[in-house]
């Protein structure tokens, strides 16, 4: 039963290992508004600390970005693929451009998805240690002993990470192996998502002749790249403000302990602008990125923005709106998004964490003044999180919009322990051929 749950993940892990052996892997961030593809060269012996700002502590070393491409996303809504063929084309565009830049063919890809209504579960398990020293099989046993809740038949497990180990009365162990004790307990964080969008994404990647070497939730990977080490350790929330969804991930003791997503994003803001000013979406997007803001000042009343509507401008009409009007349209929507995030954080019990740092990242966090607005809604400790510096990353791909792509490449180079990385306990290995043969002999002789 349990082996069946993790079968896909084990297959992807095997793919990732072949990719690491080959040394080249691609990461693919399929978002609502854009698709980013990075191609990484993994090299264990790459020497660290030659480039400024690249250290060996944060896991930035041991890989280098050799290809990067971004293209407009198509057929994706709320981070979920709705038109498979269009999404496949967009992925092809991004992968081909990145391959062209890298001058290298890539076969294995790690993808992250922001949609699929991610939901977190905290699991607990407990076993007696077989001998007095905790071994790897004990760890596997305790992970297997976690009782998996009914998460729904149409959902898929994306992450199942051991967060904390308790040995007798000692808690907060990250690695209990070789410790001495009798009773081993663990806390596991499990993340599920809707099967259909995940399956669609997998299908699109397969259609591009690529092998999937891993799947991650984008709020988790943007947390990896946008949060600094202290924030991950002491507790913080990463708000990944994307185009169609706003992902939330809470980190404590360097582990993700909670993840969620709000199905609101920057495209809703664009949509509001398009409706409010009666302009096409591309014009609205342009106005938003060039003139947008959320905090109005007196100056903004006099700051007029020219709107030239190309598509229906038969009489060469020229129209101008003040920036204050634009802010008046954008601010309520951004507030709504942040309020929704606040609700989710409250539901998750974020206020109980020792530190309550909030890091905004993602494309929509580039709106000027959003940090002060967020500070009023989410709490005082708010900052804009840029992704970590990574060797070889082009300047154009270093903005906040690319934190999930960068985080995914960090994850590719330094995978987090997942539940399925541990060998299954004996009970679940009955299907092994040798064991089956032994059993056959026992039965028949």
């Amino acid at each position, binding site marked *: 039963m349990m082996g069946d749950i993790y079968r896909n993940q084990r297959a992807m892990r095997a793919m990732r290992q072949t990719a690491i052996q080959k040394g080249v892997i691609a990461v693919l961030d399929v978002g609502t508004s854009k698709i980013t593809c990075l191609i990484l060269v993994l090299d264990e012996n790459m020497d660290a600390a030659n480039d400024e700002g690249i250290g060996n502590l944060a896991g930035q070393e041991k890989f280098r970005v050799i290809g990067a491409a971004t293209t407009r996303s198509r057929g994706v809504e709320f981070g979920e693929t709705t038109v498979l063929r269009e999404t496949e*084309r*967009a992925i*092809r*565009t991004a992968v*081909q451009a990145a*391959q062209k830049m890298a001058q290298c*063919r890539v076969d294995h890809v790690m993808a992250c998805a922001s949609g699929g209504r991610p939901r977190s579960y905290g699991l607990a398990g407990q076993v007696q240690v077989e001998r007095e020293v905790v071994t790897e099989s004990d760890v596997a046993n305790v992970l297997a002993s976690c009782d998996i809740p009914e998460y729904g038949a149409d959902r898929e497990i994306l992450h199942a990470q051991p967060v904390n180990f308790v040995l007798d009365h000692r808690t907060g162990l990250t690695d209990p192996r070789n410790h001495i004790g009798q009773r081993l307990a663990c806390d596991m964080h499990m993340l599920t998502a809707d099967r259909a969008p995940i399956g669609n994404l997998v299908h699109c990647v397969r259609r591009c*002749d690529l092998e999937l070497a891993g799947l991650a939730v984008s709020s988790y990977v943007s947390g990896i790249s946008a949060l600094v080490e202290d924030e991950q350790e002491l507790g913080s929330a990463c708000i990944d403000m994307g185009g169609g969804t706003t992902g939330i991930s809470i980190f404590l003791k360097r582990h993700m302990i909670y993840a969620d997503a709000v199905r609101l994003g920057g495209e809703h803001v664009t949509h509001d602008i398009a409706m409010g000013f009666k302009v096409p979406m591309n014009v609205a997007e342009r106005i938003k990125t060039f003139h947008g803001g959320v905090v109005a000042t007196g100056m903004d009343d006099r700051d007029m923005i020219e709107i030239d509507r190309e*598509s229906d401008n038969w009489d060469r009409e020229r129209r101008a709106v003040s920036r204050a009007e634009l802010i008046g349209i954008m601010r309520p929507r951004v507030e709504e998004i942040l309020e929704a995030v606040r609700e989710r954080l409250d539901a998750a019990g974020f206020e109980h964490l020792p530190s309550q740092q909030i890091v905004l990242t993602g494309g929509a966090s580039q709106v000027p003044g959003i940090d002060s607005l967020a500070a009023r809604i989410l709490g005082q400790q708010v900052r804009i999180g840029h992704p970590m510096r990574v060797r070889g990353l082009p300047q154009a791909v270093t903005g906040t919009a690319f934190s999930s792509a960068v985080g995914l490449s960090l994850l590719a180079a330094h995978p987090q322990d997942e539940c399925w990385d541990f060998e299954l306990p004996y009970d679940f290995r009955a299907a092994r051929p040798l064991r089956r043969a032994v059993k056959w002999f026992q039965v028949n002789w």
Partner: protein
Amino acid sequence: MRQIRDPAPSRLEYRMKRLMLRPSMRPFRRYGIPVIALAVLAGLWAGDEVRRENAVAFIAELPNKIGERPEIIVRMMTVEGASPELAAKIRESLSIDFPVSPFDLRLAELKEKVQALDAVASVSLQVRSKGVLVVDVDEREPVAVWRSDDGLVLIDTTGYRVAALPSRVSRPDLPLVAGVGADAAILEALQLYDVARPIRDRLRGFIRVGERRWDVVLDRGQTIKLPETQAVTAFKRVIELDVAQDLLERDVSVVDFRNSQRPVLRLGQTAIGTFYDGRATGLNDDG
């Protein structure tokens, strides 16, 4: 609104690009594609019959065009290192119509032609600047006149035939040799000729006998027979005898030095008569 082309590659294009990026395709991308492209271009160009014929004609015409240029065309020939007669002979044998394109001159054939002349030891032909064909000849020097069945012939130190000679009188300065194999031993004959300096006014010539030894023939029918080996030494002794005792002035028809230990004289008719007369009268009889 402006029409925007779909930036997405088609599935086929995507697959082709990925195929091309395989590491094994790298040499093909580097060499194969340019070669194929060039071949295709050349093939397309040469597909037209007329164009191909024009190209062939142009290429065939090209050497002539170049060869007729004043910087390159060959206008004259000079012969160096040859006597005027030989030079005339060379010009006659080559018989080139100037001006001529250097591409039409086959120097190897011309060289063979010149080499075929007897009087030429070696030759080198060069087309030098300003359109001059230089024939640099190393001429054979005649050192002796050889009388054989084919008549009088001039030969050089290697015994090679230089030219035919109409009569002995035209080259009185050279020694006369005769007999089969005289040309092969001409160096020895020349040494003998050198030794014969005191009696050169009486010398008629050298005869090779049986291809192994020399006879020196003087006027008045005198013959000096020399040995096969060390003929020069023997001949020197004869000359010394002549200088000391006027050996050859006397009526001796043959001085036989074939055996140096035992030279033999054959007397002339008069001398024999005198000898016998003297014997009969006891003039010369000591006893």
